[in-house]
Structures are given as C-alpha cells and as structure tokens.
C-alpha cells in the first residue's frame, strides 16, 4: 500500500458520517483511554473506580479532555478523542447501561427511541453513506 493510497483511504473513512474508524492515528491518540476502559474487565478495578472515579482515572495517562469525557459519560466525545466503542462500552457496562442506551446517547435520541428505530429496520443506509452526498 502506498502512502497516497493510505491517505485516500483516510479521506474516504472521514467521508462516512458519524463513524470513527480505529486507524493507527486514532489508536495512538486513544491508547491510554482505551486501556483505562480495558482495566474495568477486572472486578477489583471496578471497585476502585466506583470508590473514587477521578482518583482511579489519575492512574492512567489520560488528557484532561479525555478524563472529562469519561467522568461526564460523554461516549461520543470519548470516541472523538481516540476511544473505540468496544472499549468505551466498558464504562457503560460499569453503569449497567445497555448498548441501545449508548447508541441513543451518541446519536441524540432516547434509549426507547433507539430501540424503536432498530425494531423498524434500523437506521437507513440511504443518505448515510457519505458526508459529501449529504451536503449535496
């Protein structure tokens, strides 16, 4: 793969609306954030996090913005700051939130509305393939 091909692919990914692909760049930005999320797989870490969230977060090398996004449960911001959904979802698991709640929160609807959208066939792909196409 040439550098030009790689650049063209990044551009194409960026043209997909509301989608954050875990590219190498994204992964480097979000490494500490994602590894914090990963740590919540362990029961003892979940207890530590629940005792004092901010203090527990200080054990990881997160930026202030990333810490704020975690503490305020701003999942979308987490993704924008390098998070990947499978990692960030561990925060929601910690809060006993469903994937539909998280999907709703990221796309600006309630859990109920999100669930209803899924039952009626999901979010249509039509009009959601390309930002360029959306801005016509």
């Amino acid at each position, binding site marked *: 793969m040439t550098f030009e091909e790689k650049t063209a692919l990044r551009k194409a990914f960026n043209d*997909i609306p509301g*989608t954050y692909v875990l590219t190498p760049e994204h992964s480097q930005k979000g490494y500490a954030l994602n590894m914090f999320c990963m740590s919540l797989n362990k029961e003892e870490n979940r207890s530590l996090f629940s005792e004092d969230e901010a203090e527990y977060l200080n054990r990881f090398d997160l930026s202030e913005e990333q810490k704020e996004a975690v503490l305020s449960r701003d999942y979308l911001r987490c993704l924008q700051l390098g998070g990947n*959904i499978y990692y960030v979802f561990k925060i929601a698991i910690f809060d006993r939130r469903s*994937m539909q709640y*998280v999907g*709703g929160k990221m796309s600006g609807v309630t859990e109920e509305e999100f669930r209803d959208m899924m039952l009626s066939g*999901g*979010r249509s*792909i039509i009009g959601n393939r390309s930002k360029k196409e959306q801005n016509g």
Partner: protein
Amino acid sequence: MEDAPSLETDQRKNKMAKIVGGIGCSHVPAVGAASDFGKTKDGYWTPLFDALPEARAWIGGLKPDVVILVYNDHASAFSLELIPTFAIGTAELFKPADEGYGPRNVPDVHGHSALAWHIAESCIMDEFDLTIANHMDVDHGCTVPLTVFFDQPEAWPVKVIPVCVNVIQFPPPTANRCFNLGQAIQRAVESFPEDLRVVVAGTGGMSHQLQGERAGVVNTEFDLTYLDNLVYNNELNRTMSHLEFIREAGSEGIEMVMWQIMRGALNSEVEEKFRKYHVASSNTAFGIICLENKEE
C-alpha cells in the same frame, strides 16, 4: 493378548478428519443474555429463537466432533497492548471471559489441542503465520454462537478450536486473506489422520454500527446479497474492500470478513441448508446461514 480392534474402530482409525459443514452466524451479546436470563419466549426475541430449532437439528444431524469457531475478541483476552491478526487457541480449556459483567454463566469451552496444533503447524508451513494461544479466555464472540448452535446444555457437546481475528484495530485482514486462510485450514483439517467430523463457523456481523452518530445503521439489502453470494457468487464477497464493508454494512459490519474463513474452508460448490435473517437483535442485524459441501 490384546483384543483385536473391531472393524469399526479400524475404519475410524484409517479415516481422516473431514469438514462436514459451515455456519455463518452473528454473535450478538444480547442473544446470549436473552438465553441466559430466560427471555427467549419474550415477544422481542421469539422471531429469532423460534427459528433456531431447525438450525440446531441440522447441526445435530452433522454429528460434529469439533467446531472451529472463528470470531473476534472484544477487548477481553486481547487489548490494544497486543493485537494478533489471527490467533488459534491450542489449549484444552478456555474459560468464559469477564467482559465487565462477570463471566457468562455458560459451560467452559473444551479445546482439541492435537487438531489445533496440527492446524497451527500446517497453516504456518503453508505461510499463514497464526499466533498460538495456549491461554485465552473466550468472550461472547465465541460463546454466543455456541448458545445459538447448542442451546443450554450442561456441557458443550463438541470440542471447540477458537480462531480469533482482529477486526477492531484497523486494518483487519482483507476478506480475501480470510478466504485463503480458510482454504489452508481445510487442507490442514483434511490431513489430520483421525476420524473427526469438523464444522467451521465464521461469526460476527451482519450489518451493524455500534458507534458514533451513525449508530444503528442496518443495510438489509447488503446483508441478503452477502448471504446469497456466499452460496452462488462468493467472489464478490471475497474481493470486497474494507471501505465498502464499513460504509455499506457499518463500522462493525466489517466482522463479516470472518465469514470468509468459513467459506474458504468449504468446497467451491456449496448447498444452503438453513438461513434466518432478523432485524433487529439489540443494535444488530442478526443472520445465520448453514452450508454443506456439494459432492465434487
């Protein structure tokens, strides 16, 4: 004096392992949870679970000894610390992983070390450099398909060889690479001198996007075409780019590259035995397809 081996034992000894079927199947965590928490009769879940007895009967009829289960780990056994593109589980035992809720209350997964090591050796000598995992907890990616295939037994009725594929960190392997690995797995299995009936399952998908403002994307037309093409024109699936999977089937729809490992492990001509497609289970279009080789 030792007893002479019976004719039947003798025949079994002279036989090679054989791939008797292939399954493509979603591995939605909520499907596992619906089974674990007794919700399969709820209206939300009946369209899916009511279809499964037929698939389970077909799988049971194959009398499989081993399932090679291709799936992706979701930040459970692996993390961004270490990202094998392909890893094969060679252990005799795999424990259900704690994904944050505590481990799923399902039976432990028993491996088939001898066959797994043989596949690892054969594939590596065939230039597919698999990572060898002697210790690996298995998450919903592996255990939900087992629930779909076998319901809620005391113990899983088959040995399982988990094959783990990275589809989270970009770039995942291409669909073509997955297909070719499937062919190498077929060669490996068919050169294993034991009478074993082997099913290969490719899991994940179908169209879904869990993340971002586009969360909830489903592309039924894409999914149904992908299913049709698995049977009739897999060339189109095998050559599909990452970009097309992600744009058309959602960022997590890329998991469907893993079905290509299953497809590659079958002959070029296959017969469809069962299919169920349902929208939605949680945030995902659920699909299962059961395939058998046509006699060549």
